[in-house]
């Protein structure tokens, strides 16, 4: 009985907070996604499927596709840069390893707005990159780099690369080196040992890193807003617009729900892949 009383004291605040300020808000946005938009920006309490039907409009499917493909490219680039990085780091002298790893995390602790702004400084027409190239190459005409999909892509990779490196490092650092030695003794060339031992054993790290990069980038709002300059729309920006300028809250709610759906499907797939991987001998 006493033990139950303790448990109640420990659990009540967290359950209260989650129910009131997380689950009820999710219910609220769900309800909003099924009502009509009012004439003057408010809402009319009238049931409709229309908000979800609009999602299948070519325009919004295109935006959705752009968000998903941008997030996929971002994940792939992070993996290509991060894997060799983590691989090298995991085999580095243990003494300096932690310092090198810390240096990856430092930028991640700085304000996201500042990190994104730094790329405005570099990429704008009078920015550092154009100035540098202009100083080196005599006939350099400044490139319009800011407010392009490329700028958004660079900003996203910059923002989320540490999320890829850390789980990869954790997986590669635990790798049993004796397995690689055994492969070598049995005559496997290094390339074969890499693809047949290192990669499969670091798969949990690859999966975790990919999920940690893909999920926040697919719903990214700030990076496309600042580096894309509102010229290229991603799902996060469209949601923002429904709430801040277009004042179509029901449609914005439907978009949010779809975005959450994509992310949850991704999460479930991740856990399933992880379980399958563990199931293998």
């Amino acid at each position, binding site marked *: 009985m006493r033990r139950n009383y303790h448990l109640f004291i420990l*659990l009540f605040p*967290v359950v209260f*907070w989650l129910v009131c300020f997380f689950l009820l808000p999710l219910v609220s946005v769900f309800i909003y996604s099924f009502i009509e938009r009012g004439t003057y920006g408010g809402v009319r309490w009238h049931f409709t499927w229309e908000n979800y039907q609009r999602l299948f409009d070519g325009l919004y499917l295109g935006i959705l596709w752009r968000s998903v493909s941008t997030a996929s490219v971002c994940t792939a680039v992070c993996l290509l840069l991060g894997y060799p990085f983590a691989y090298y780091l995991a085999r580095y002298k243990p003494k300096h390893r932690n310092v090198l790893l810390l240096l990856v995390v430092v930028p991640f602790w700085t304000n996201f707005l*500042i990190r994104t702004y730094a790329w405005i400084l570099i990429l704008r027409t009078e920015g550092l990159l154009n100035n540098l190239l202009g100083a080196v190459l005599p006939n350099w005409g400044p490139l319009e780099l800011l407010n392009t999909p490329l700028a958004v892509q660079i900003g996203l990779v910059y923002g989320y*690369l540490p999320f890829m490196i850390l789980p990869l490092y954790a997986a590669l650092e635990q790798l049993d080196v004796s397995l690689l030695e055994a492969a070598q003794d049995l005559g496997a060339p290094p390339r074969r040992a890499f693809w047949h031992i290192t990669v499969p054993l670091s798969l949990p790290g690859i999966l975790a890193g990919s999920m940690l990069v893909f999920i926040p980038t*697919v719903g990214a709002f700030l990076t496309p807003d600042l580096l894309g300059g509102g010229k290229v729309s991603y799902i996060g920006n469209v*949601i923002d617009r429904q709430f801040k300028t277009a004042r179509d809250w029901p449609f914005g709610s439907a978009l949010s729900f779809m975005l959450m759906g994509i992310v949850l499907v991704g999460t479930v797939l991740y856990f399933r892949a992880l379980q399958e991987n563990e199931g293998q001998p």
Partner: protein
Amino acid sequence: MKRALEANIGLVYLFLYTPIFAVVVFSFNSGEQISVWEGFTFGWYARLFEDAALWRACRNSLMVAGVATVIATVIGTAAALAIERHRFRFRTALVRVLYLPIIIPDIVLAIALLTFYVQVRIPLGLMTVIIAHGVFNIAYVTIVVRARLQGYDNTLEEAARDLGANEWQTFWRITLPLIAPGIIGGALLAFTLSIDDFVITFFTAGVGYTTLSVHIYSLLKFGITPKINAISTMLLANSIVFILLFLWFQGGATSSQKQDF
């Protein structure tokens, strides 16, 4: 092969640090352009001190982060203790729901809270931001404290109880000091995330309740001046102090643990 790996390492560090370095260097630039070097000055820093709106935003940020961190640390620690030390019916369900605010995109959480506040007629202000930050901060504190609880064995607690300590005494004298580094680490993490948060604050703050992140955002959207470089550098310095504090507490945690056992 080794060369290629080393080149990749260099490239990644260059990629990570060039933008930050550029911001710091250009915060001392005397020109009116943000990215054209003209001469050295401390002028932009001096101007920061005269900027009343900036300081108001700072105060709001500190207030939101401070209150949200205290709330999240207490609730998150309690949740971690319940999850690690007790078996109850909805334990798995609780863990899943608890981590969901971290998994779903920021903008979805922000929109959900906004529609909720409007529907139940809670006026937007700083309180609504604090509540929102509580949601994700509780999750992060719980993760960090749970990791700490998993890391040590509870024989010390059993010994204390065998020696006649009651449950409160055991908690205050044994459990709390042992998990304190985890609690402090979780609190520091929550505070940093709260200060840094933009998206959730942007949607849940009332008009006129500007935090530092929202202030910086409006500067970026409606007229970039070199002052932004100086603000960025100050924030950067702050973050570095916080990382060092975090590491110091976490590092202290492992070394004291080694001494104890």
